[in-house]
């Protein structure tokens, strides 16, 4: 049996998990997949979070991708990092960089168990700040500079590919090289607030093909989290596992302990359970009805007769769900264009599923005024970094 087929039947424990530590965030990115902003009062306590780490160690989940929200705003963030290291759980955390001061950079450089990924969504301030907010580009680059100075080896620069930045891939690569960093590019999902801006931000089909060619050329030293496997239908498979791992080899733990099939599917439909249940995370992973169902052979539906089905496996479940397309049909960004027709044929009255939870402070429904090509037009825009700037 091919490895991919083995994985489709699920593993005893996830290969890795994504753990959003908090919904609190000092930015308000227009495409935030977890609709973050305000802290949820039901957030896992320090003791509960440590319990999850210990359970991951018992299950031999070797590493977790920690995100949020902005995970570093949790008061116990460093304590939890230390706890993970003491319990043989490797951590890669995503940050907007606002809390990575010189001391934090030095601390990170001294640890073997922690990897850092700084998010930017444009290779220039104009393109980035239109999505992530005024000043966020300089903040991220400042963090990378401090990590570099502290001797932190090979941090990641994490980029969500959009229509506005798809032409900047070489620039992102050059930027990563400047800071001794490794580039990681991932797919824009119509999840969370991403659903509101997806039509405006998702790459065109021409851009997708260019991206595919670029990945074939650079795939060996650019990380993708396997998020572009739907593009394998263009021809040669991209490096990586090329399957939807949701509930089979990966899952998400959200800040209140809810376990979802994947980080891009925060919706009741994909909720398997909660780590606070008596059966714990392990019980949810092994026995929840949802995950059991996801590990059964899935129907390719309309895609099954397509000659490329083996390459793309029908694409991303979350991308289909949050654009209102059937789960057993083509991905909205199907390389062969089968998604575009379905998107166009959606009825006016179609109710697109809304995310289960929304912690947005403000809800920007489109790119910030001025568009990506120009700096923000309104100087009176609330600066999401105000708290940070006032302190430093």
């Amino acid at each position, binding site marked *: 049996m091919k490895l991919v087929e083995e994985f489709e039947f699920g593993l005893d424990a996830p290969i890795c998990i994504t753990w959003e530590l908090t919904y609190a965030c000092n930015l308000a990115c227009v495409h935030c997949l977890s609709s973050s902003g305000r802290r949820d009062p039901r957030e896992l306590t320090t003791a509960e979070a440590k319990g999850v780490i210990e359970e991951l160690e018992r299950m*031999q989940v*070797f590493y977790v991708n920690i995100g949020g929200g902005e995970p570093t705003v949790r008061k116990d963030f460093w304590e939890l990092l230390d706890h993970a290291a003491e319990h043989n759980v490797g951590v*890669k955390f995503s940050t907007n960089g606002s809390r990575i001061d010189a001391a934090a950079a030095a601390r990170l450089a001294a640890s*073997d168990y922690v990897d850092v990924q700084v998010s930017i969504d444009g290779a220039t301030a104009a393109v980035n700040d239109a999505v992530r907010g005024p000043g966020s580009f300089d903040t991220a680059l400042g963090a990378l500079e401090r990590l570099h100075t502290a001797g932190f080896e090979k941090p990641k620069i994490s980029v969500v590919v959009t229509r506005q930045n798809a032409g900047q891939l070489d620039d992102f690569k050059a930027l990563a090289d400047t800071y001794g960093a*490794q580039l990681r590019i991932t797919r824009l999902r119509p999840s969370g607030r991403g659903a509101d801006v997806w039509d405006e931000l998702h790459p065109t089909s021409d851009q997708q093909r260019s991206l595919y060619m670029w990945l074939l050329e650079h795939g060996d030293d650019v990380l993708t989290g396997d998020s572009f496997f739907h593009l394998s239908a263009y021809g040669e498979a991209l490096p990586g596992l090329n399957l939807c791992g949701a509930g089979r080899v990966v899952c998400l733990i959200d800040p209140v302990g809810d376990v979802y099939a994947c980080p891009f599917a925060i919706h009741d439909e994909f909720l398997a359970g909660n780590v606070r249940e008596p059966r714990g995370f392990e019980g949810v992973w092994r026995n929840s009805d949802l995950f059991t169902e996801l590990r059964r052979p899935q129907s390719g539906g309309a895609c099954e007769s397509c000659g490329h089905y083996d390459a793309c496996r029908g694409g991303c479940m979350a991308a289909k769900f949050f654009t209102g397309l059937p789960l057993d049909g083509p991905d909205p960004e199907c390389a062969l264009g089968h998604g575009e027709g379905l998107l166009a044929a959606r009825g006016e009255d179609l109710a697109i599923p809304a995310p289960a939870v929304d912690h947005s402070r403000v809800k920007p429904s489109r790119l910030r005024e001025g568009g990506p090509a120009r700096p923000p037009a309104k100087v009176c825009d609330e600066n999401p970094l105000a708290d940070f700037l006032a302190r430093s």
Partner: protein
Amino acid sequence: MSAEIALDGPWRLHPQVALRPERFGALAYHFGTRRLSFLKSRRLLDVVQGLEAAPDPTAACRAAGVADAELPSYRAALRTLAETDMIVPACGASLADSESNPPQVVAA
């Protein structure tokens, strides 16, 4: 590089590597290089786990029940693991540098 690695003498799992048996074989994770490897059979897992007790990798293969005809493919799999520092000579320096890597699949 693979041609240069002599799989002679005693070898062992890198001290920073953890193994997790699965139905198909095992996951091997290196906490230093952060590389994940998939060992594609239970027998390969047996070989890797038996390295330290064996005088050399070939003996570890035989102890795990690898037939002579299969030896070359098992040695090739071990060489892949050696190149990525998942296994190391029981005394001596490791071969790979430390960086973050995408997962690799290792079949025998």
